[in-house]
């Protein structure tokens, strides 16, 4: 009997104690918790500072993907209708989030650091089709004063798809 009372008091004490500590729950979704620096959330296709897309449509992410979640299709571009530096750009870029396992191998494979798994973890879909995220959705928003892609650019400037190689010795 005495033992039972003790146990009950102990429980109540716990409740009493918790009532005076700072709660660990937050008011999601109004309030969001910081994720760790190495967190791998939803992919973002990055842009250069001038608004051009970093993705050159090389498909290496799709080749590296162990879950076959990425589909890339590339096309040729000109200086009048330019999406990314070089001759090739991704005309279609899709990630199927029902397949993606967030391993980050695509990020490792990318030669231009165009695809980054960022901090967004809010993924929800109502059907299979909406689980496939397309390029306009994945692409980073353009910041002022840059123009969105495609851009009409000065001819002969953006000829190289992969940024000029740096001397590893330096």
């Amino acid at each position, binding site marked *: 009997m005495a033992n039972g009372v003790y146990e009950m008091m102990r429980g109540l004490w716990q409740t009493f104690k918790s009532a005076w500590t700072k709660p660990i729950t937050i008011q999601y979704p109004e309030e969001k918790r910081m994720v760790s620096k190495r967190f791998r959330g939803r992919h973002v296709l990055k842009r250069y500072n001038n608004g051009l897309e970093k993705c*050159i*449509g*090389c*498909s*290496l992410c*799709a*080749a590296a993907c162990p879950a076959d979640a990425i*589909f890339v*299709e*590339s*096309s*040729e571009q000109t200086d009048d209708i330019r999406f990314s530096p*070089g*001759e*090739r750009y991704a*005309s*279609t870029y*899709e990630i199927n989030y029902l397949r993606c396992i967030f391993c980050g191998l695509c990020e490792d494979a990318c*030669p*231009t650091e165009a695809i980054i798994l960022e901090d967004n973890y809010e993924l929800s879909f109502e059907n299979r089709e909406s689980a496939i995220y397309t390029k306009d959705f994945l692409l980073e928003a353009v910041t002022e004063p840059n123009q969105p892609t495609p851009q009409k650019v000065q001819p002969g400037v953006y*000829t*190289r*798809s*992969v940024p000029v*190689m*740096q*001397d*590893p010795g330096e």
Partner: protein
Amino acid sequence: MANDVTLTIDGTQLTVPAGTLIVDAAREIGIDIPVFCYHPKMEPVGMCRMCLVEVGRPVIDRTSGQPVVDDAGNPSLQFGPKLETACTTPVSQGMVVIGMSDKVKGARNDVLEFLLTSHPLDCPICDKGGECPLQNLTMGFGKGTSRFDFDDKKHNDKHVPLGDLIYLDRERCIQCGRCVRFQKDIADDPVIGFYQRGRNMEIITNSEPGFDSIFSGNTSDICPVGALTTADFRFGARPWELKSATSICNHCPVGCNLTYNTRREAKSGGKIVIKRAMPRQNEAVNEIWLCDKGRFGYHFTESAERLLTPLIRQDGELVPSSWEDAIDLAAWKLRPHGLNFVALANGRLSNEDLYTLKELSDNLHGNACLYSSMAGGDLAAQVGFTSPDGLSKIGKGTTILVAAADLHEEAPIWWLQVKNAVKRGAKLIVLNARATRLDKFAAAIIRYRYGREADSILSLIKGAENAGESGRMIAEADDLLVIYGSDGLGLSGSKQVSSACAELLVKSGKLGRPGTGLLAVWQHANDQGAWDIGFRPVEDMGKVIAAADGIYIAGADPAGDNPVYAAALKAARFIIVQEQFLTATAELADIVFPVQTIIERDGTYTNGMRRVQRFMPVLEKPSGPRPDYLVTAQVRQRVVHSNLESVSASQGFMIMAAHLKDYQGLTYAKLMETIPQHPIMGRSDLYYGGTAYDNRQGLGVQLSNAAARHEQLRLVEADTMENELPDLEHMEELLAVPVRVLYDSGTITKSSRLLEKRIHTPFICLHPKTAEQKEMASGDRVMIQVNKTDYLVTVKLDDSVPTLHVLVPNSLGIPMEKPILVKVHR
């Protein structure tokens, strides 16, 4: 054999024929010596230095002439102070080759370091990435670092269209010269070359329009880097994402082996589409080459104007109908007894389709006609060329006679092989009324007047009075290959030419040897198969069509080709058409059955050499169209109450093989057998032969013939009667003769957006004197009157055309099936 030498490569002893290069000898035992500039189909040049190996030769005692042996009794070896190039060094007796020592590895390392000094880091966007020899060899032998100053990297133009089909990336070029050598030595179109020297060296084109060659696509296959890419595949997909499907090119009777690469594409609405056509090695057919028409001419498959449902005529209009109704109606109309039935088939249909149609025609006691103006398929079936190596190994001892053919335009790959046979020592006699591109390689050129083709051939027979030098070449040769075409001929002319060629072969006394025989340059891919099955061309097709009660047209478009046939079709009582598109003929039909294209189904072709080859489905079947053989079989089932035998292509083929003597014992499985081919290509080592595919889907089967089996021949005596030639001198008209051009405006070429620019506008060719007489100059737009219809054409001048003659390319919109008199006026 006396000419064999024994040597040791990396510890493995092997025996190869004398004169073999070390690099080729090593391949025989599975050792791959890396190369960039060497290509087994071309002369070695030793430019890239990638194949350096250590070579030791036995020391020979000068006094005795015997090899010196060391104390242990082994022959002592002398290694050179420097490494030697395996691609230019022939093997010798007792040679020891070391291909994997530290010294060799170091040398390869250094060569790669040099090659990469200015090579861009483009691999992610390069079309060659994933099947690139430089990439593979760098991974295999490269150092991973470079001692060169990064700022010294040269940056060159990355987007240089050499022509409308091939793009050059100057940065990527490693100056191996494979493309330049291919164009000069193999294709004989030296339209690209090196310009400048050292690090400034670049490939330029010196033709107008740029890269004007019908073999240009092959340079992108053999380019060991991504410097040459095709306009067709440019950034289309990565090589590892593609699926491969086996097919056969259906543009000409060569029957080149192809691999289509396909991918499901968002751009095309989620459909599977062909991304590129690649050659598949078959040394007996196309070796590893393809002409540009075959490589880029597959876009007809993307046409949106396909027929999808059967159409039947109701109250004068073609209306969609169900398959059941259309087949029932067709059968009902064909059922009456004593009906004059005509089956008209195009040689583009497969053997299975043709055989089923022939069965239907036989059941109805009909006339099975081939839509062609060439004769001699029955002769080719008796005295045809049956060499198991095709034209690829012909050389010394063979005399080749090319009669009335412009091979370069009619069958480009055969042109290339005949030309290369001459290089290997074969003797070539070209017999034509005008100059063709083969003349340059001929030991003898014989000119005749149009209409005198057969006499000209018969005059070569041994003992004939004017046989002369050419007669001697034929008599002295071990083998005689006779190739005939349709240059300037109609059906009756073709009959004379083919029987004259057969007679020449019989009289030569060389028949029975596989390298001796007849080869016809047909107008369509499967004309030979159609002949074997029993289809025959008819002399006056207009009359045959007009007289028919029921005509069954498969794959042919007579109404679109010739207004005379269109008028004849209007007179025909009942027309059934099997077509992919709503052609002019289909528009006149009473029933139209939509059929599948060859890339949506399987089947077989018999090429001009009578090699039966299989093609397989490449793309998804569209819902609606059925394969030709199935449609015909379903109609036949209702007409004669037969069993539905041809429900699959393989079954159809088996039935055919059981009934045709030469095809007996053939099955699809047999057609898919392969044997090792030399040179060995298409394995994982792309650096050796380029990106041509290894042939694992079958080399086809070469049919034997009566001459090879030493059976009694049933040939017709050649018609030596001199044709009556019109007296052109005193006539207002000119004699128009039909010729063929590669880039014609046939339905298949027309729909390729890449080749569009190359399709000729309708033109005629005149001798300058004739043109002067008619007051016309090169480039003038004039009218040519054929069968009372005027056609607008451009005048071209060629002084090899006989005077008062006019060459008219067929399939450019002007109906020309035989030489006729025409008026040319302004």
